[in-house]
């Protein structure tokens, strides 16, 4: 009985923590963008503008939730739910500390890859169900971009799997006791980082929504809380990828002095800030540049990483 209550507590704790962090990111992103563009960002509502999140929530809940008459209604409604579902599911396998995790799955890494692949359905279906040309173009781009970046994302992680000899995320972290994988697997880390940006379709790889050419891409037709779901889903995606980078390449909860969960959060936070820095600094590439960059640079690099890591491991 006690175990059931404990695991339920962890489940809801992770759920609430993940959504809270994602909501807080709305504020953090605007403040950080402001900082890097030499202005302030929202600083009026509450201390440091923190209650801006609350104001935004009230606004988005009270907005008209409109479904266009030409849309494919059931799919239109399911699409935003899919992205929330897949991302939140993935949080289940992340080990926050040695003890705090929802499930200790022996194929945790594969589960993460699978769930992030399922996330493609969300944007593609949203683009398709909206029945508008901009949404469709956005959905198409999203499908091609995410499917291709999925490939190197998976391949770049195989080096980590070889070094740790496990798909279990907890064991991967424990294998980094001596040396964080970001050093022996630097190439894998770089590829994973870039693929992660593309996977969450964040700037500079936000071509599926590219507001300067496609209005808002796959969520052009969405309003109210359905749009909010995409929004929160995107921020959850950033949190997830940052957590995964921290887990896979930067030793997860490992670190001296401070308690493990603090170490995990610090590492995650640094990468979240890096994601926002990317948005503040870099322009969006052209779509063909994005695809050729993926297939002609990242794909060979991840293969090279795989071969070299495998060769070294065999030689030892």
């Amino acid at each position: 009985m006690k175990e059931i209550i404990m695991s339920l507590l962890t489940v809801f704790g992770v759920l609430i923590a993940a959504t809270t962090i994602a909501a807080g990111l709305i504020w953090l992103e605007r403040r950080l963008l402001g900082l890097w563009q030499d202005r302030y960002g929202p600083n009026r509502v509450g201390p440091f503008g923190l209650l801006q999140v609350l104001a935004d929530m009230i606004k988005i809940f009270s907005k008209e939730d409109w479904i266009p008459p030409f849309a494919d209604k059931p799919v239109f409604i399911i699409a935003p739910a899919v992205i929330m579902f897949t991302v939140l599911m993935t949080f289940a396998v992340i080990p926050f500390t040695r003890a705090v995790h929802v499930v200790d799955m022996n194929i945790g890494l594969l589960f993460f890859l699978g769930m992030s692949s399922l996330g493609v359905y969300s944007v593609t279906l949203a683009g398709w169900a909206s029945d508008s040309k901009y949404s469709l173009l956005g959905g198409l781009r999203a499908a091609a971009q995410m499917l291709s970046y999925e490939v190197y994302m998976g391949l770049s992680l195989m080096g980590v799997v070889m070094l740790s000899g496990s798909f279990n995320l907890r064991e991967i972290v424990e294998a980094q006791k001596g040396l964080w994988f970001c050093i022996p697997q630097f190439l894998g880390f770089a590829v994973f980082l870039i693929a992660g940006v593309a996977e969450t379709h964040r700037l500079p790889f936000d071509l599926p929504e590219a507001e300067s050419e496609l209005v808002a891409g796959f969520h052009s037709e969405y309003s109210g809380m359905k749009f909010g779901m995409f929004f929160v889903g995107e921020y959850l995606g950033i949190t997830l990828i940052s957590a995964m980078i921290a887990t896979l390449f930067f030793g997860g909860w490992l670190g001296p002095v401070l308690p493990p969960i603090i170490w995990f959060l610090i590492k995650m936070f640094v990468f979240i800030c890096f994601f926002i820095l990317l948005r503040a600094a870099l322009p969006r590439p052209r779509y063909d540049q994005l695809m050729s960059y993926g297939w002609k640079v990242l794909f060979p690099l991840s293969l090279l990483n795989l071969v070299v890591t495998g060769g070294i491991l065999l030689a030892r």
Partner: protein
Amino acid sequence: MLSILRTLWTVLLHTFRKRATVLYPEEKPSIPPRWRGRIILSRGPDGAERCVACYLCAVACPVDCISLQATEDEHGRRYPEFFRINFSRCIFCGFCEEACPTYAIQLTPDFEMCEYNRQSLVYEKEDLLISGPGKYHDYDFYRVAGLAIGGKDKGQAENEEPPVDVRGLMP
């Protein structure tokens, strides 16, 4: 690739830059004295109204937001009976100030004149008239103009000679 990293680094260095934003209600921006803001009617150095109700401002106004009615006092001096500016129409172009021959109407560096009620943006003469001479301290129209009004005859203005008797034979 290197240029991308350099861009990232440059943007990161902006963390330590001073922010360009002026936090307005707490921190007032410095406004130049010739700023075209709220319109006022000024008084001369002796405290009398400068406005002679010539209608030039109302004519110059491109949005017709000024309305007034001229009248005369017992000395024959013209002044506006009412003077009304509708600030919900005013575009603060400053043409009225340029048109004014007596420096009566002036634009000031005050821009904080928001109202909840549209009607409160219509300023009457008592709202517009200030107690001082505004931007031009010593100017007094009747002291430089050759016009004869009660208390000042022809030839009594500043830098003015007494009138010449054109029918007299004396030089």
